[in-house]
């Protein structure tokens, strides 16, 4: 539904994005993830036909965003960063204008506007001026205008920014409910949001795509081994030796001692959960187990690893560990 190929955008000497390529299948929700200034908004501005790319191709619903802009614009709903709206119009009048601009048939306008008003929970604000709304309501009006016209593709730039926790939950549920009939690409820097809402993830950093896939794929890609952190009261060398003997364990690295126990980072192959065996081993030997938990499996860890890895690569070659997790100083 969205196909981006080798997209590059330069503002004079500054390169905002370089050789960005990714695809989104119909009916999927993809999260566009990256630190501030990574190029998320630039990519979305190009996809929404607001701004041309310096080079590369982007297609939405099979139409080129540059040469078939009008066809693309008939099929997208766009929520730009910070939801720019007309402050002097009442919410209802504003949405009427959007419905007409998007070519919603005259007879259907009233019903369509009422529908998005209900979906975005702005019914009680219909007659207020947009400029008098709180940030959260403004954001929801922005989302409502994107949904008008029932577009196939939704491009949402930070849709939950400025909302309170309850509103965030409502909007996430709303976006999730769009899956299937709509293709959604949303940018965010809130990592759990992606896990909760999206089917797939594209991570962008300093204008380049550094990873993409489903969350599980990314975790498997970045962390090829499962890792368990474990603390035991017992003789360090014996414990390490015993742990190495467990079937499936690939490596055991010592961690700093704490709480009167010795710590180890145990790496094992992904397809084998060694936690149960580790517990049995430790207790059978008469050592006491203080702590045991799995590490480095969340999208957050993936993001930090991928983005920090990039930064370290580009910044200082003599400090390869800069920004890396201190736990794995093996």
């Amino acid at each position, binding site marked *: 539904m969205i196909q981006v190929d080798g997209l590059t*955008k*330069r503002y004079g000497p500054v390169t905002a994005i370089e050789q960005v390529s990714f695809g989104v299948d119909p009916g999927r929700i993809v999260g566009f993830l990256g630190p501030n200034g990574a190029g998320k908004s630039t990519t979305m*501005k190009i996809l*929404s*036909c*607001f*701004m*041309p*790319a*310096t080079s590369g191709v982007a297609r939405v619903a099979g139409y080129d965003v*540059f040469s078939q*802009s*009008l066809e693309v*614009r*008939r099929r*997208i709903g*766009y929520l*730009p960063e*910070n939801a*720019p*709206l*007309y*402050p*002097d*119009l009442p919410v209802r*009048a504003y949405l009427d*204008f*959007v419905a*007409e*601009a*998007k*070519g919603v048939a005259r007879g259907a306008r009233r019903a369509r506007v009422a529908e998005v008003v209900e979906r975005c929970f702005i019914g009680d604000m219909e007659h207020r*001026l947009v400029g008098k709304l709180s940030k959260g309501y403004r954001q929801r009006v922005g989302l409502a*205008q994107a949904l008008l016209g029932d577009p196939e593709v939704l491009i949402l730039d930070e849709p939950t920014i400025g909302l309170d926790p309850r509103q965030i939950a409502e909007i996430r549920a709303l976006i999730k409910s769009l899956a299937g009939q709509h293709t959604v690409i949303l940018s965010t820097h809130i990592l759990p949001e992606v896990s909760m809402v999206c089917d797939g993830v594209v991570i962008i950093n300093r204008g380049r795509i550094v990873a993409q896939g489903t969350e599980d794929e990314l975790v498997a890609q970045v962390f090829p081994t499962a890792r368990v952190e474990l603390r035991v009261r017992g003789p360090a060398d014996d414990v390490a030796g015993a742990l190495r003997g467990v079937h499936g364990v690939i490596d055991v690295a010592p961690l700093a001692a704490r709480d009167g126990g010795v710590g180890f980072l145990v790496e094992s192959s992904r397809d084998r959960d060694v936690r149960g065996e580790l517990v049995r081993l430790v207790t059978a030997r008469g050592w006491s187990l203080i702590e045991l938990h799995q590490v480095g499996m969340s999208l957050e860890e993936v993001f930090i690893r991928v983005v920090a890895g990039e930064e370290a690569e580009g910044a200082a070659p003599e400090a390869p560990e800069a920004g890396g997790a201190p736990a794995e100083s093996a």
Partner: protein
Amino acid sequence: MGWRAVFKKEIRLYFASPVAYVVFSFFLLISGWFFSQIFLFYSDASMRSFMQPQFAQNLSVTENVMRPLFTNLSVVLLFFIPMLTMRLFAEEKKSGTIELLLTYPVRDGEVLLGKYLAALALFALLLALTLVYPGLVSAFTRVEWGPVLTGYLGLLLTGATFLAVGVLVSSLTENQIVAGFGAFGVLLAFWIVGWGAEWASGNLRAVLQYVSIPEHIDGFSRGIIDTRDLVYYVSAIALALFLTLRSLESKRWRG
């Protein structure tokens, strides 16, 4: 149609913000003052013509009331029109709403048309309100309506040209003050450029005279519709709107 949506939105915004009210109030206040002064002067002159009948033959309403009124109003427009147009594109650029407007399935030409026609409609309404003045005159004396109508046509064309220039300048900046003063500057320049014709000769003189705005207003207020004047206004409007469209479209291809 997309332009209708934009047109309605712009009209709403003119009246939702104080812009329309402020411009209307002051324009009517100032034009009313001009009218009353001109009319008082005229009635005073009519009184005196009782004593000295040789003056009476010069006392035509068209020549002594409507013509100076139209000339004065066209000068007032020079100041007021930029205030109507300055927000049209500059405000949308500044607030970022242009990003949504240009990503709706509405052609750039329709966006421009909607905005221009909204400003033009507002101006036409403003002009229609000044019809009170010839109406008042007709309560006291006979008015030749032909020259009044051509005079209004002249004002309408002048205003439409000013609006087109204002829209063009507004599309070039995101600063409303720059848009307002820029338009005023351009219009003033075209207003006074004709003065140079006094000292020029040959082709230069002809060109300076032709591009000068006041040269083309006068005929209308005397009841003359000259095709040269019509061509001047229509081509100026077309050129300004064409350049505006180019400046809008350039957003789509300029890297």
